[in-house]
């Protein structure tokens, strides 16, 4: 008998199936952008797209970290609070006169450290990620107000430069430093996921943790690593947030974890793990950004429509994932 008869599906059906969620997101994005351009003249301005990146750079970075966690089948509720805490700590340390570089290093260490501890609790004590990162979220948010009840402004030269520096073309279109940082993070993450053993182990564990273990993959190390990476991304996001707002505020980014999770899911990453791309997450963040921009342009629609539309999209994409049966388990 011929071997090809053993395959269950013709090969042409295979490829789009896996990429379908991402393609759906891409299509959605193009449709929404098309609507924007056809309805509002100003929408076709390139700067509109750049602004979406500028306004959502920190979200993108945090969503990249969340992509790692969700790919293993976990979840990290702490990211919004960790970002806020990072911004808060930076503002506080700068206020107390520490040099900018040192502040940057310290601020960037706190997030990964918390992520590492959470990963350890999840792995060694077998407590659900949901609960552990919930505690992490409480802790980080608590630290924010512990540092200060009020917003701390940042006046440091490095920070203000970073905040105001524009990288543009001669026609006046520009992006901020945050956008560049976000793109670097995206590229590094995409490389790690596609070309390193760590990245491949992330996918393997999300696909089937028992198999991964029997194949001799380092389950614990990888799990702890993804929460550490998520913490690092949240910290970078927090720094970008402080560039963006030039302050550390105790109540900033409340509920951001939901936007981040929504962006990752809309970007085609399956919440049960094992399937998804950083590129999809970029699209997911863009979808959220375009929705916000459209609603701003419209003027008659109110901001709460954003949430309703995001909820609707979440439903549509989860249903799509269910229908095409990406849940391998």
């Amino acid at each position, binding site marked *: 008998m011929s071997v090809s008869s*053993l*395959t269950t599906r013709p090969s042409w059906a295979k490829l789009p199936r896996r990429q379908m969620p991402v393609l759906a997101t891409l299509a959605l994005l193009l449709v929404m952008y098309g609507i924007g351009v056809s309805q509002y003249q100003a929408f076709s301005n390139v700067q509109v797209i750049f602004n979406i990146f500028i306004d959502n750079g920190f979200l993108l970075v945090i969503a990249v970290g969340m992509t790692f966690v969700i790919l293993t089948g976990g979840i990290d509720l702490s990211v919004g609070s960790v970002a806020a805490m990072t911004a808060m700590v930076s503002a506080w340390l700068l206020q107390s006169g520490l040099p900018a570089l040192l502040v940057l290093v310290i601020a960037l260490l706190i997030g990964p450290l918390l992520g590492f501890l959470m990963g350890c609790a999840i792995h060694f004590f077998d407590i659900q990620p949901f609960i552990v990162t919930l505690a992490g979220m409480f802790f980080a948010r608590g630290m924010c107000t512990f540092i200060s009840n009020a917003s701390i402004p940042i006046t440091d030269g490095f920070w203000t430069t970073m905040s105001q520096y524009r990288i543009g073309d001669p026609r006046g279109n520009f992006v901020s430093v945050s956008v560049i940082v976000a793109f670097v993070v995206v590229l590094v993450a995409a490389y790690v996921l596609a070309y390193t053993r760590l990245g491949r182990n992330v*996918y393997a564990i*999300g696909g089937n943790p028992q198999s991964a273990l029997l194949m001799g*993959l380092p389950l614990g190390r990888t799990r702890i690593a993804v929460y550490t990476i998520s913490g690092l991304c949240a910290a970078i996001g927090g720094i970008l947030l402080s560039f963006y707002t030039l302050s550390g505020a105790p109540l900033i980014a409340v509920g951001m974890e939901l936007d981040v999770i929504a962006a990752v899911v809309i970007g085609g990453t399956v919440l049960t793990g094992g399937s998804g791309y950083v590129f999809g997450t970029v699209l997911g963040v863009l979808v959220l950004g375009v929705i916000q921009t459209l609603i701003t342009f419209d003027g008659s629609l109110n901001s709460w429509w954003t949430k309703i539309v995001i909820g609707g999209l979440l439903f549509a994409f989860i249903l799509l994932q269910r229908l095409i049966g990406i849940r391998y388990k």
Partner: protein
Amino acid sequence: MTDSRPVLTMTGISKSFPGVRALHDVDFRLFPGEVHALMGENGAGKSTLIKVLTGVYGIDEGVIILGDEQVAFSGPMQAAGAGVSTVYQEVNLCPNLSVAENIFIGREPRRFGAVHWAEVRRRARALLTRLDLDIDVTAPVASYSLAVQQMVAIARAIDVRAQVLILDEPTSSLDAGEVEQLFRIMRQLRDEGIAILFVTHFLDQVYRIADRITVLRNGTLVGEYPTAELPQLALVEKMIGKDLDVLERIEEQPRPELATLEEGTPFVEVSQLSRRGAVAPFSLTIHAGEVVGLAGLLGSGRTEVARLFFGADRADHGDVAVSGEPASLRNPVQAINQGIGFCSENRRAEGIIPDLTVRENMILAMQAARGWLRRIPRRRQDELVDKYIKALSIRPANPDMPVRNLSGGNQQKVLLARWLITEPRLLILDEPTRGIDIGAKAEIQKLVVQLSDGGMAVLFISAELEEVLRLSHKIAVMRDREMVAHLVNDDTVDADRVMQTIATGTQREEANQ
């Protein structure tokens, strides 16, 4: 084969778990370039032997020599590194990853620290070509059939320069063509000098592929035989054993003659019931007061038949009549409403609710049938529970203890009680005596006799032939997912005859009459 030296020698292996001696003084050898079948019924110690070999468990006594060195692996990974690779029954691959990646993950070829994908794909193709498998290595494993997945797992196993390849029931979910494909690859690997340890429940396959057979029973070695010198009947005898143990002492009670039982309308009659991949079409009638035994080896389709009767799985085809009326048994609720109860062989996963108490586990089926609004009054609960704790002598006799704290035998009795409380007209017992002590075993057997005397129909499944013979009025024999014979359990039927049927599948004609 005797001219070469064994690649693997296990001598005097013993392994105990608390309360159970899983292996006792077992010897096992494996020669390069042979397919060696490891045979035995449930609890014989096959999987324990594989696990001590691959280092999942440590051994209490004995020596394992691989090549020239004594080894004690810390786990499957270390074993694989030393050349002992295992492919498990449930394919252990990551379904979302590509074929190539599944073969190499954890030891991908790298260049400048990055995974060298072109090299991964090239080597995967080369490896699969060696296995004569021409598939797209970039497609996710999940898009291929189980057979291909199985072969991908084998490819992964042999890439680490395997000397010994353990295939643990690789064929249990493959169809005939897929099995052939797998065998071709096994022969090829054998010819390349790899020693293959093959565990299966399919007798036919053993005789088609294996060069040598080792039989285990109850954790001890029965013997090692060249396949050619061990007829199928002898193999079945060695696997099942003929020890007429303590159970024989159940006093023979006068039993109603089958002819009298079969006078009326059968309680349930199924014809040409089947389910793809589980069991070929079969027909069976069960009368009130009748004990129908299902004999056959593990994996022969016994459990699948039981599940179809109870609606635990849906049948693809076939008709069911209950008390002469056409009926539908498409889910457990329907079956229960028709008066059918089912004790699963898988007590832990499909039977007990470990958190709940003995009482709650017992009344669960009855309560489910009544609906949650009509709670069984506490007094009635106490009556029922006390009655069955006494009748089945459940220990400890504490209805409020979580059932997970009970021993296996007592859990089994709790499940029996769960169904007896619903006063079923047909009780399906799938391996009710497996893994429980002799005393409890005898009690359960006695109970089956009592129940059938009281007019209940029983479908009784057991791997122990003696038990089936002793209890059943008639016996349906299963072989390789097919019901090959219906035997009336009269004086002409004995263990030998049933074993012969299991071994050869003859009397098929009789079955179709």
